[in-house]
């Protein structure tokens, strides 16, 4: 079981995933990875967790000087930079440490668990610097990526606009050519960017905005669709020290993630904000998509981490809170609520959701590292919508149960579990909503080109074979394979259906597909756990915990697959065709 000192994630579980299951030692020195994980856990606990409540109650504020955030956030990120963690995943020639994404992900999960709002700044900064490093010119990399890799400047992603959220084709930010200099093709940007996390703050030396905008045609009109989107680097402070024409029009007041200043930014209220083109015109969306898998896995990972901490908090609370007596006992001392069957059921569901989510995201992180192998890339593309959505939905479910286990106390702001729930509620929304992910899975990843499905099927079958050879896991694999067959049968029916009706029930399909994937992830973990050396008592308990969580998932969750597929298979259009007047 988790140690009482595991406040963020279970150390044993992280080690289990990295070493026992995913064999990180094959590619990276195992002791170095452990040292980085221990460093991350310590830093996250001492400097991120410590202002978790404060960053929620002291929201960012805006005055004439710009946005002010809680000073502890800046201090925490200073420690993060001093520890070299901004640079962890970058190449050595960029001042980085060349760590695999798997190690970076495992490290980052601790910071997200401790304080996801503070952790959002380095997450965005790394994503920004990675884009510039991949597509920018050497001069742009030097000027804008390096200071972010060093943790001196932070970065943002300016995609959405008030009228363009999930649909980036509606973007109206205009980029007018403005000559050329040593940093590349210069443009003047004009437009409004909405939901910009870290859009302004007072803790980093500069802010590098990456802005999606359209270059007008000769007729002065912006091109339609997403093909005309280009990516620009627009720093808050220009290389000559002058302020760029970027202003904060307002702060968004969110239910969670409050430490992350979320802004409406106006570019070009005066002469136009200076922005340098990254790569070629019209490549903006393609460039963004290249980074999409990692960004979406990071969102899933954050969601997993939030669910995970709420599980550890409820586990601890359930052992301390004395309430009621065992069934049939009327007198005597009250017992800790963990002795009540329904509380154990809730805890085991949380464990299955939280540990399953973390395992899935780490598995996908390993696939990111295997980018030279086409099969791994194809499998990653298929699994990414699940890695983004499942932890977002079920990490949140674990947060919800945490409030329930805490009872009335969980509903108060004195405890962390309500805030963890509010923080996590963002994750099914941003970086592609659950509905968008469902369409991505069913459309782009399956119906358009389903070549990755056999790869996944082979993984399921291999895990099933291993599981069937282990006495205590026997009987689990067939139900997973049966659920997979149901998915296949359903896809057969969908492919016969007119294209405009194929997406009517894409989201229930995503849920079903996600649960089968998680069944497989749990079986993988159970097989690994069953093979651990269990001579020591703590190891035996750990392994049994994994196997029980797997069994619980198969008993109580996997049967839901059939229910979700019902509507998909029947081709129910009851909702899709419902006249608006009937709502």
């Amino acid at each position: 079981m988790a140690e009482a000192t595991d406040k963020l994630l279970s150390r044993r579980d992280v080690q289990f995933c990295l070493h026992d299951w995913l064999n990180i030692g094959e590619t990276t020195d195992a002791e170095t990875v452990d040292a980085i994980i221990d460093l991350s856990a310590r830093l996250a606990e001492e400097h991120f967790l410590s202002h978790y409540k404060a960053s929620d109650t002291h929201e960012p504020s805006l005055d004439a000087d710009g946005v002010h955030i809680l000073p502890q956030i800046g201090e925490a990120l200073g420690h993060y930079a001093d520890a070299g963690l901004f640079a962890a995943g970058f190449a050595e020639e960029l001042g980085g440490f060349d760590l695999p994404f798997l190690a970076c992900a495992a490290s980052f999960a601790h910071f997200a668990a401790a304080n996801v709002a503070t952790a959002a700044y380095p997450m965005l900064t790394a994503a920004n610097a990675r884009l510039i490093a991949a597509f920018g010119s050497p001069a742009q990399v030097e000027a804008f990526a390096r200071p972010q890799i060093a943790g001196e400047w932070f970065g943002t992603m300016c995609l959405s606009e008030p009228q363009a959220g999930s649909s980036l084709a509606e973007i109206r930010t205009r980029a007018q050519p403005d000559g050329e200099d040593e940093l590349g093709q210069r443009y003047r940007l004009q437009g409004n960017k909405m939901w910009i996390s870290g859009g302004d703050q007072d803790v980093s030396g500069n802010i590098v905005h990456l802005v999606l905008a359209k270059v007008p045609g000769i007729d002065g009109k912006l091109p339609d669709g997403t093909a005309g989107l280009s990516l620009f680097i627009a720093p808050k402070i220009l290389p000559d020290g002058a302020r760029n024409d970027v202003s904060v029009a307002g702060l968004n007041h969110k239910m969670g993630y409050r430490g992350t200043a979320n802004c409406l930014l106006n570019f070009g209220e005066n002469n136009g904000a200076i922005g340098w083109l990254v790569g070629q015109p019209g490549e903006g969306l393609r460039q963004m998509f290249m980074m999409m898998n990692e960004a979406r896995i990071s969102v899933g990972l954050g969601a997993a981490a939030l669910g995970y901490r709420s599980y550890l908090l409820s586990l601890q609370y359930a052992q301390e809170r004395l309430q009621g007596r065992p069934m049939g006992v009327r007198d005597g001392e009250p017992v800790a609520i963990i002795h009540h069957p329904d509380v154990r059921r809730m805890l085991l569901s949380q464990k299955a959701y939280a540990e399953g989510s973390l395992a899935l995201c780490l598995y996908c992180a390993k696939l990111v590292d295997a980018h030279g192998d086409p099969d791994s890339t194809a499998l990653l593309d298929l699994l990414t919508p699940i890695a983004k959505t499942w932890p977002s939905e079920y990490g949140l479910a674990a947060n919800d149960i945490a409030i329930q286990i805490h009872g009335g106390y969980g509903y108060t702001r004195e405890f962390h579990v309500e805030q963890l729930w509010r923080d996590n509620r963002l994750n099914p929304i941003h970086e592609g909503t659950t509905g968008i992910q469902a369409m991505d899975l069913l459309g782009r990843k399956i119906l358009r080109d389903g070549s990755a499905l056999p790869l996944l099927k082979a993984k399921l079958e291999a895990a099933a074979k291993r599981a069937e050879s282990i006495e205590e896991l026997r009987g689990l694999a067939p139900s997973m394979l049966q659920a997979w067959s149901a998915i296949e049968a359903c896809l057969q029916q969908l492919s016969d259906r007119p294209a405009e009706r194929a997406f009517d029930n894409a989201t229930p399909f995503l849920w079903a597909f996600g649960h089968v994937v998680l069944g497989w992830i749990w079986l993988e973990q159970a097989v690994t756990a069953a093979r651990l050396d269990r001579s020591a008592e703590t190891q035996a308990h750990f392994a049994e915990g994994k196997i029980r969580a797997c069994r619980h998932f198969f008993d109580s969750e996997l049967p839901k697959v059939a229910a979700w597929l019902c509507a998909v298979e029947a081709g129910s259009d009851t909702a899709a065709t419902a006249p608006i007047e009937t709502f």
Partner: protein
Amino acid sequence: MKILVPVKRVIDYNLKPRIKADGSGVDLANIKMSMNPFDEIALEEAVRIKEAGKAEEVVAVSIGPAKAGSDTLKSARAIGADRAIHVETDEEVEPLAVAKILKAIVDEEQPQLVIMGKQAIDDDNNQTGQMLAALLGRPQGTFASKVEIDGDHVAVTREVDGGLETVRLALPAVVTTDLRLNEPRFPALPNIIKAAKKPMSTKSPADYGVDTAPRLKTLKVAEPPVRQAGEIVPDVDTLVAKLKAMGAV
């Protein structure tokens, strides 16, 4: 000046030790193990002395299983030790044998200063530093809360029962650290990665001609008794009566 810092791999100080069911010891399987916190403080102090330009080299040494070399000594190099000596053994090594091995290493390395934790948090012996100083015939400053190098002397402020006592030792000397000496740093990522490239030599107790056979036998390891619930009594008379009944007065 060269500084030698012995560091021990022990159960992490945050963890609650679990006793093995057969009472033969503490269950350490897959448990987080860390550098003994007192030793971490000793290492931090050595690195600070080096950073202040008063020492040229910090050498960390650990006696223990393979992991003491791969984990504990790597983390010692990440914190700032320049190189490491791992004396590998899977046997339990008692303080006297540790002191003898360390003496042999000191004879070989000739450090001006040995700084080590006053005790290890697993067995709480508080013996090795004193034994080492005696074997070497060198001065010792134990329970240090302040260490100042002053030419060929070191001034050590000691935490003693009555308060603080400062002793001035001629170098070479042995210093053992108390908790308030300093606050150890986090080893940063670049240093963690560089640590793997810093040299480490691996030895065995036999290389130093030391017999590590235990002189003590562990009979049984048990949890401390569970604390009984208290009781609120209405007045002093009842209290005295209860205490008398318990035979406490």
